[in-house]
């Protein structure tokens, strides 16, 4: 019990004093997960939209595949990307391994299916009558797509939130591809794993608190955004 109280008190003082190292770790985390969410959204939303909007052979199979990929463990993605960008791998000469770019690549791959699958779900839920109405009112395909997308934006934002939550909290990819280099690729989750290994829990608890705080803040932000969209 003592341990918990001690860690908690030190953690609060760490957060209040805005410890330089802690700020650095938080910044790295936000940066990489921000980029990967951005890239995954830029790719995943159009993919999801196309799959949901168009009908083509193998559509159901593709959706099943995407849903399966939702559950891919981070270490599998980590290994996969590692094999490519390792010095002995195909893309070895780019010297990408153990950089922030490597984490972004891995995390983007991780959440691409999340964004796509959730977008598909959001678009498919939209009543078919919207589509028909838009078309009878003389909208072309692009305009129809726009109408449907606008109706589904609530679900699409939810897709982005879910994706962001997955990357900010994952540890496997950050550790395997980022390498946990202090003040370069050390993220909140890898730092916590390390502090646990070292047996000093202060920074770990402090970072855990910051992580929770950030997630809460982010969700609040999205919530406000969604609320505005709805009204």
């Amino acid at each position, binding site marked *: 019990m003592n341990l918990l109280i001690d860690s908690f008190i030190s953690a609060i003082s760490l957060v209040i004093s805005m410890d330089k190292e802690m700020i650095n770790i938080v910044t790295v985390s936000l940066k990489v997960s921000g980029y990967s969410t951005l890239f995954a959204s830029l790719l995943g939303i159009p993919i999801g939209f196309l799959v949901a909007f168009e009908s083509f052979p193998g559509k159901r199979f593709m959706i099943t595949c995407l849903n399966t990929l939702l559950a891919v463990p981070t270490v599998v993605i980590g290994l996969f990307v590692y094999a490519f960008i390792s010095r002995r791998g195909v893309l070895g000469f780019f010297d990408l391994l153990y950089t922030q770019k490597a984490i972004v690549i891995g995390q983007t791959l991780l959440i691409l299916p999340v964004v796509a699958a959730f977008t598909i779900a959001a678009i498919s839920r939209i009543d078919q009558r919207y589509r028909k109405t838009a078309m009878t009112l003389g909208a072309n395909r692009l305009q129809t797509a726009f109408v449907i997308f606008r109706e589904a934006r609530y679900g699409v934002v939810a897709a982005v939130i879910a994706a962001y939550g997955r990357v900010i909290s994952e540890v496997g990819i950050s550790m395997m591809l980022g390498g946990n280099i202090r003040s370069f690729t050390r993220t909140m989750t890898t730092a916590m794993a*390390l502090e646990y290994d070292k*047996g*000093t829990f202060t920074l770990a608890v402090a970072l855990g608190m910051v992580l929770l705080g950030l997630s809460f803040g982010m969700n609040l932000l999205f919530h406000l955004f969604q609320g505005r969209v709805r009204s």
Partner: protein
Amino acid sequence: MKQMSMRIILVILAFCFFCSNGLAADKIIKMSTTTSTQASGLLDVLLPELEKDTGIRVKVIAKGTGAAIRDGMDGNVDVIFVHAKAREEKFVHEGFGTKRYAVMHNDFVILGPAKDSAGINGLTNAAEALKKIAGAKAAFVSRGDDSGTHTKEQALWEYTGLPLEKKMQTILKKGKKKEISFIHPPGLGQWYLSIGQGMGKALTFADEKQAYIMADRGTYIKYKFGRDVPIDLVVLCEGDPALANPYGVIPINPKKHPHVKYDLSKTFAQWLVSKRGQTVIANYRLLGKQLFYTDALAR
């Protein structure tokens, strides 16, 4: 019906009691140790011999030295087997352990890429080698996990006489403030890569980045000669007395933690420094190379 269920519960309770009794009667102790003793394969040879002689079985929890010592302080284990002499002596001095038994030593080596851009090949002075690496700003991988190896590396940086950056982290322990220091040359995150991971991981990391690294010889041999895809790094600096790496075993003090099995852990420690235990250690070969040199019989 009620009586029936009462009986069943009693039987279950009695069963649990006998089971736990049986467990307690077994001679099992828990030991926190460094990753190097386990990764080198020494424990796989040592512990079966121990069981043959004394009947004691050891549950091994392999961590960094820092975490192992922490386990000892918290009374999570019965004995620790680590390599950071100064910290071990402090541990005993503060009353957490009863006595430090000097068991054995091996040594550290400084590895690097064969092309050796910092030009340290053949140096026998470790501090000199590190100074050259820092001068060339050649990539250097540090464990950075508060382990025995990391402790050693920080001490070596201090020997170089270079201006170092020091970060103190204050943590509260039982209401008292305690400082943890982290010493490193300037260039953190640029050429000095502190990755906070185990020895094996750090080695593959350094190999991947073609960086310099300080490693214990055991893990190096394993990764160089015992793998399908050996690492490319080569030994560039060795033989400095400052690179010696002594291991000690410390039973946890029953006065601090009454629940520890002191009798067993003491027997274990004494067996390790006995002629029998020392012979097993001296005869241990990893891929044909002697890894550990005994410390208890020499004196």
